[in-house]
């Protein structure tokens, strides 16, 4: 796989491990790059950084398990549009922001007003020379480039057409829901969100839907002292054919960051989470539940997480669960870095693959790097099949095999789902998962 990727990207692997200058030139050439207003400097800086680092090649250590070629290709494969829209969170009072092919659709969205927050749209705000988001746009992304390069995040900062800018000043009870819709066939979408939670503020951000034929998202989140940020993203089969998503978070003193993502099928997905804990007594949890079926197109789902502890008495958790069948591939690369002085760090990481057949695979690369002596860090990774004994036990009580498998799969995912704090949101996800699994079990 590694070698063909390099060839497919048209690179000449020599001294450089990256994809080569020609690949980057072709990639940029195919894009319509905005000049930007308040983001102009950040975009210019991104252009220079990207030139210096190049796009990833298959020999890059960080891309060892996922072939970057389809992300490097100048144009995405066309993708038939299916209009099935998710009804996830429909029953919940929330503020809806609709993006069609990566561009904000004001007519389809709720008014941009909410108590305790200020919402702007990137494409509109970027007409002007100054904005509060100027302090953050591309900034967290840039600091997330150490110790590993993330060229697609840089590309996003350079190319982003649109996104939301939310400044939260109070405790916002009503979640903000970004709904993505697709319209075009071969859309190559770059969306960039910037969120700042002022001290003591609280926000729940929901994301659902198909962003584009090929999507690249960056979400930068700055969480102030004692603020709380909850995030749930959900992607289904026809939403996510080829996508790379990044979340860059900086977590302040006593603050909370919680992100959960659900992926149900799709094709090639790479999610990068980069979390820097900079204030004492902060909490950062990131989790995912992934269901992949290789029969619906080559399924490959890669979660790559980096959590850096730079303060005392902070807690971090990474909980990744992937259910794979029919040749589906699940990847997890997760690192906990405890910087010097980050005493009393409590770091935890678990990644598990449940293989429903022998053709599927789960690969995990857990890493711990610790430079403080008084810390508690643990990680674990398992790959296994369904528990046959439990399956028989359920069936012996009259539960049909398909239904028993659904129950066991849900129980496997439970730890990840438990990372969703809001019970209504968790139940919504659970119900959806149950329905989906049940309908699949029959088919």
């Amino acid at each position, binding site marked *: 796989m590694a070698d063909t990727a390099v060839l497919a990207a048209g690179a000449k692997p020599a001294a450089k491990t990256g994809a080569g200058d020609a690949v980057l030139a072709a990639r940029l050439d195919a894009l319509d790059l905005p000049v930007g207003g308040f983001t102009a400097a950040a975009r210019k800086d991104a252009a220079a950084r990207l030139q210096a680092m190049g796009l990833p090649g298959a020999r890059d250590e960080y891309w060892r398990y996922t072939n970057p070629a389809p992300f490097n290709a100048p144009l995405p494969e066309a993708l038939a549009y299916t209009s099935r829209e998710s009804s996830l969170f429909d029953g919940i009072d929330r503020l809806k922001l609709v993006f069609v092919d990566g561009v904000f659709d004001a007519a389809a969205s709720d008014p941009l007003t909410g108590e305790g927050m200020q919402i702007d749209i990137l494409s509109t705000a970027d007409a002007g020379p100054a904005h509060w988001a100027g302090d953050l746009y591309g900034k967290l992304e840039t600091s997330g480039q150490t110790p590993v390069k993330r060229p697609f995040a840089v590309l996003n900062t350079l190319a982003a057409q649109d996104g939301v800018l939310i400044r939260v000043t109070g405790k916002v009870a009503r979640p903000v829901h970004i709904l993505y819709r697709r319209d075009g066939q071969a859309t190559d979408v770059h969306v960039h969100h910037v969120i700042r939670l002022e001290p003591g503020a609280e926000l729940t951000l929901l994301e659902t839907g198909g962003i584009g034929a090929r999507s690249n998202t960056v979400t930068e989140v700055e969480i102030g002292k004692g603020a709380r940020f909850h995030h749930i993203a959900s992607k289904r089969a026809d939403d996510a054919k080829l996508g790379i998503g990044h979340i860059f978070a900086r977590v302040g003193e006593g603050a909370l960051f919680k992100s959960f993502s659900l992926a149900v099928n799709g094709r090639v997905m790479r999610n990068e989470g980069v979390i820097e804990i900079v204030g004492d007594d902060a909490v950062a949890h990131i989790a995912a539940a992934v269901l992949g079926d290789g029969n619906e197109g080559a399924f490959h789902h890669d979660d790559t997480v980096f959590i850096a502890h730079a303060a005392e008495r902070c807690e971090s958790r990474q909980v990744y669960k992937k259910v794979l069948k029919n040749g589906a591939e699940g990847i997890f690369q997760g690192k906990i870095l405890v910087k010097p002085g980050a005493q009393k760090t409590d770091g935890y990481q678990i990644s598990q693959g449940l293989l429903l057949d022998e053709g599927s695979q789960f690969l995990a690369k857990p890493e711990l790097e610790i430079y403080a002596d008084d810390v508690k860090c643990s990680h674990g990774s398992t790959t296994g099949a369904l528990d*046959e004994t439990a399956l*028989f036990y*359920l069936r*012996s009580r*009259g539960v049909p095999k398909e*239904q028993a498998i659904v129950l066991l799969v849900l129980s496997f*995912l*439970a730890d990840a789902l438990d990372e969703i704090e809001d019970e209504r949101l968790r139940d919504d996800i659970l119900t959806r998962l149950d329905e989906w699994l049940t309908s699949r079990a029959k088919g």
Partner: protein
Amino acid sequence: MSLNINNLHVKLEDEDKQILKGVTLEVPAGEVHAIMGPNGSGKSTLSYVLSGRDGYEVTEGSATLDGADLLAMEPEERAAAGLFLAFQYPVEIPGVGNMTFLRTALNAQRKARGEEELSSGDFLKLVREKAKTLKIDAEMLKRPVNVGFSGGEKKRNEILQMAMLEPRMCILDETDSGLDVDAMRLVADGVNALRSPERSFLVITHYQRLLDHIRPDVVHIMSNGRIIKTGGPELAIEVEQNGYGDLLAEVG
């Protein structure tokens, strides 16, 4: 319900190892039969084969429930037909709540039999009532299936499932092992409460003491994959007093 096992031969699927070597046994409707026998004689294997666990191969013989061919059914079909096995080692299922488990099982069986599913209100009422008599507290019902349960709690949980599902052919595999006297009495009372003219029991046990509480109609002694002797309750007392030595010597 009546269970008929005739000349049942079973080997391990992956290994050339014969475990049951011609078991013949009949449990008529409404009767309680006990099977006793030394460790390794094949008692659990018999219970697993009857309930449809993978890994075994029937090479000869038959097993029917009210005349229907048990061995041709899926495990869930056997359950819906009225068969229940209280496991010697109840299985832990992390992540599945005991309540969810019970309700899913009960409703699946009702559905298979063409009955309506129980409303959550009716289900709750039923489960609370049954749990109370078995001294199973609400906390235990909330926990994942058998996770963190003591040995005795697991066995009581098996009986709770039996009481909820109301099977008509109940197999209890060493439900008494690991129980203290009080817990055993609870289990025995649970079983006795279910005794009825349509319901039959096959009680696998090592000890006479359970049979003091659950009075069997017939006692079978199993050894090395066969029933070597069948008799009345007095047979259990004989085993308790003299061990299996004499019986084994008798059959040679």
